């Protein structure tokens, strides 16, 4: 188990309704801060603050594209959250799928 951003941090980050809305918009597709601010009823600095919390919780990541900063989901953080919710067999089957599909490509 890695102890980088904790599951607790992820759930705390998502416990705020506005922050959850920001998260859901980012989950839909990668977006810039300005675009997000236009969609939620809070100021742009507030949106930036929410994004910072989501990023620290390992749920989103950002990338500079030209002059803009684009936010998108952080796959590892989401995977950790999922595996927490899934339980042993779902987790094992997901690992099984990854191994089966990866090996199959190598064989070809």
């Amino acid at each position, binding site marked *: 188990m890695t102890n980088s951003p904790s599951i607790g941090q992820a759930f705390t980050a998502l416990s705020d309704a506005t922050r959850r809305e920001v998260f859901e918009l980012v989950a839909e597709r990668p977006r810039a801060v300005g675009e997000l601010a236009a969609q939620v009823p809070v100021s742009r600095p507030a949106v930036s603050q929410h994004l910072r919390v989501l990023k620290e919780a390992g749920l989103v990541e950002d990338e500079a594209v030209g002059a803009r900063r684009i936010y998108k989901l952080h796959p590892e953080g989401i995977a950790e959250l999922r595996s927490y919710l899934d*339980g*042993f067999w779902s987790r094992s089957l997901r690992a*099984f*799928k990854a*191994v*089966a*599909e990866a090996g199959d490509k190598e064989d070809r």
Partner: protein
Amino acid sequence: MNTDTMTAVRTETLVKVPIERAFKVFTEEMESWWDPDHHLGDAPLAEMVVERHVGGRIFDRHTDGSECQWSRVLAYEPPTLFVFSWDINTRWELETDLQKTSEVAVTFVAEGPDRTRVVLEHRCLDRHGEGWEGMRDAVGQGWAGLEGYTAAVEGRDRDSAAS
């Protein structure tokens, strides 16, 4: 919700490989995908061996050379069906009373030449006896576990309302 769904945990995945490969990775390369945190024995897991016939043993081989048999093959029908026993108790130790073991049925269905649906059902969990719900939560947890929890809480509610 009926009793069957309560005493079983079910999960499935769609794998983009031929059915033969899906079956082979599941039965012959178990250690490549099994969660290494969930195994018996103190030494790290080196290999999981499945004797490929009904009645065959499934055992872990550890890095120190020790072995631990924790399952029996109940059905082996490549590439469509694999059923094995779960001879592990609710404290995650070996269960020697075979009446108190559950079973895991894995079905492979070809949905195309390179697509296989794998459906896993861990069933008869109530055979583990007292505290069997703990085993269900350990293997299913998550949403399945929460469903069970909700049902248990609602059942308790009804009980106390009746008394």
